[in-house]
């Protein structure tokens, strides 16, 4: 499919962001309209958060090919870091910053051993980490409130949260775009495509993987802090929600693993699709949603961006097959070459 030239694409993007940024002002300008409500602003805020989270997940899972089933642990650490510090008298911004730093430090500590594992072993190790941290939070009553949870000072300002999350999503997607065109981005894709080959060619794969992991964790920690403040209440079950990471994986896969626009499109599509499915199939919405996703994954393994011709898009199957091995299609070709 032919892509629009660069300048019109950029103009369209700026117009889209400007349009979204002015949305909370519409009720002031047109008091009679009923489309932009607090509820709709809340929906968009959730979508912006998901776009940010999916983009963060995609940095390790899509670019570097390390599929992480426990990424929501950084969201939880960011949320609890913010909540605990605010309960100790910190104001929101420094508390949120500290929560994100906790997530980053945890990523460095846990990434050092786990990122040496390949494919499903890494995915399971991270899932185990996620469950372990959730249970530690549950039993640490003195600090985290345990199963009862923590209440944060309420601050109900939907437009402000809308703007903050929109700005964060724009900044994170811009950073992902920058990374993709930098040497670091190409290095991550090289690691995904052939880690042994990358190491042979002088790339310190461990340092690059951990860097990507820590950048994603820091940004996810920020979203966790924002979410906790917006929600005003956190407990282990609501923060360490098991399917949160699975959602991020699905969003990145649908949009296109390893692409910049993929997680944005995937997050927006799944968020609004879920809204429509919920409205029309209230009793069996999960079944309908699951079936639709199976169809999408079966027929567009490289996601929407892969269909649109993004050359760096890949599929989950290829990522897992290649982890630490000679690419399987390369072996097939070698066999063909020596077979008479």
């Amino acid at each position, binding site marked *: 499919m032919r892509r629009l030239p660069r300048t019109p694409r950029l103009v369209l993007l700026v117009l889209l962001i400007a349009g979204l940024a002015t949305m909370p002002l519409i009720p002031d300008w047109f008091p009679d309209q009923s489309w932009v409500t607090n509820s709709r602003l809340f929906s968009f805020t959730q979508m912006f958060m998901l776009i940010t989270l999916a983009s963060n997940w995609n940095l390790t899972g899509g670019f570097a090919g390390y599929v992480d089933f426990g990424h929501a642990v950084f969201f939880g650490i960011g949320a609890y870091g913010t909540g605990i510090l605010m309960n100790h008298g910190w104001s929101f911004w420094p508390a949120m910053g500290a929560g994100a730093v906790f997530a980053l430090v945890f990523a460095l500590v846990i990434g050092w051993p786990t990122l040496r594992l390949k494919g499903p072993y890494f995915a399971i190790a991270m899932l185990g980490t996620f469950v372990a941290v959730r249970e530690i939070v549950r039993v640490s009553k003195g600090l985290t409130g345990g199963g009862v949870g923590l209440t944060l000072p309420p601050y109900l300002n939907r437009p402000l949260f809308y703007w903050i999350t929109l700005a964060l999503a724009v900044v994170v997607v811009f950073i992902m775009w*920058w*990374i993709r*065109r*930098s*040497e*670091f981005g*190409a*290095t991550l*894709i*090289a690691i*995904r*495509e*052939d880690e*042994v*080959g*990358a*190491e*042979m*060619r*002088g*790339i*310190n*794969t461990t*340092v690059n993987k951990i*860097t990507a992991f820590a950048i994603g964790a820091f940004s996810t920690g920020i979203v966790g802090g924002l979410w906790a403040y917006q929600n005003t209440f956190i407990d282990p079950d609501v923060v360490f929600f098991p399917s949160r990471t699975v959602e991020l994986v699905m969003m990145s896969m649908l949009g296109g693993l*390893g692409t910049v626009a993929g997680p944005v499109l995937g997050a927006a599509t799944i968020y609004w699709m879920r809204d429509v499915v919920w409205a029309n199939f209230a009793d069996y919405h999960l079944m309908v949603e699951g079936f639709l996703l199976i169809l999408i994954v079966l027929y567009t393994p490289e996601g929407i961006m892969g269909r649109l011709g993004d*050359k*760096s*898009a*890949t599929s989950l199957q290829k990522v897992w097959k290649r982890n630490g091995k*000679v*690419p399987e*299609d*390369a*072996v097939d*070709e*070698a066999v063909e*070459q*020596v077979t008479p």
Partner: protein
Amino acid sequence: MTEPLLDGRGVTKRYGGLVAVNNVDFQVFPKEIVGLIGPNGSGKTTLFDCLSRVQSIDEGQVMFKGTDITRKKPHQVAHLGMARTFQVIRVYRKLTILENMKVSRQWRGEQPWNQLRPSHRDIETRAHELIEFLKLEHLTHENAGTLSGGQRRLLELGMALMPDPELVLLDEAASGVNPTLVNEIKDRIRELNRDHGKTFLVVEHDMRFISDLCNRVYVLNYGQKLAEGTPTEVMEDEAVIEAYFGT
């Protein structure tokens, strides 16, 4: 006397009870093209893997440019100036030819934050020069996954040359490549050796390829060094003839 660029002493690699490389001594001197031949399963690729540190060495020592690399990590060996290609071609299929070249440049002395910038102009220029040298310029912005086997071999050679290494290990560079392209690869290797002083250690099955290119040849059989000499000497060696033809 010139110091060897690569100096292996008593290199041994075992897989359980199987000794894949057994007490092999060898030297590669600067600006040489050295061949490494032997029947299938003789341990050529295992020795290559030991030299580039894909595999660990059980016994012995390998020195490169006077530095002991026996316990170094693969990327550290690459940083010292050793590059290699692979028997089964390893290019990054989802990156363009230009990106494949740039990402193979290694991070010699580069600060991590500099990697967050697009490539330096010098790297870009070198990548374009090598792509032109390999006659792949019409495919510069194509994904490596779309190339033919022979074109991938050339790209892999370019990726090995990108960081300007002193020693290049070529593992079956002519395998699966049509005869015209094989001649092209040979011409490129000769030119790099003659005009740029690059040293090559070449594993190859094609004896004509070896005799056309190499100054010296080592022959391995059952993991042990069987013979050593010029291509003509080696091809007339009784033990080598027996190892290859069983007579």
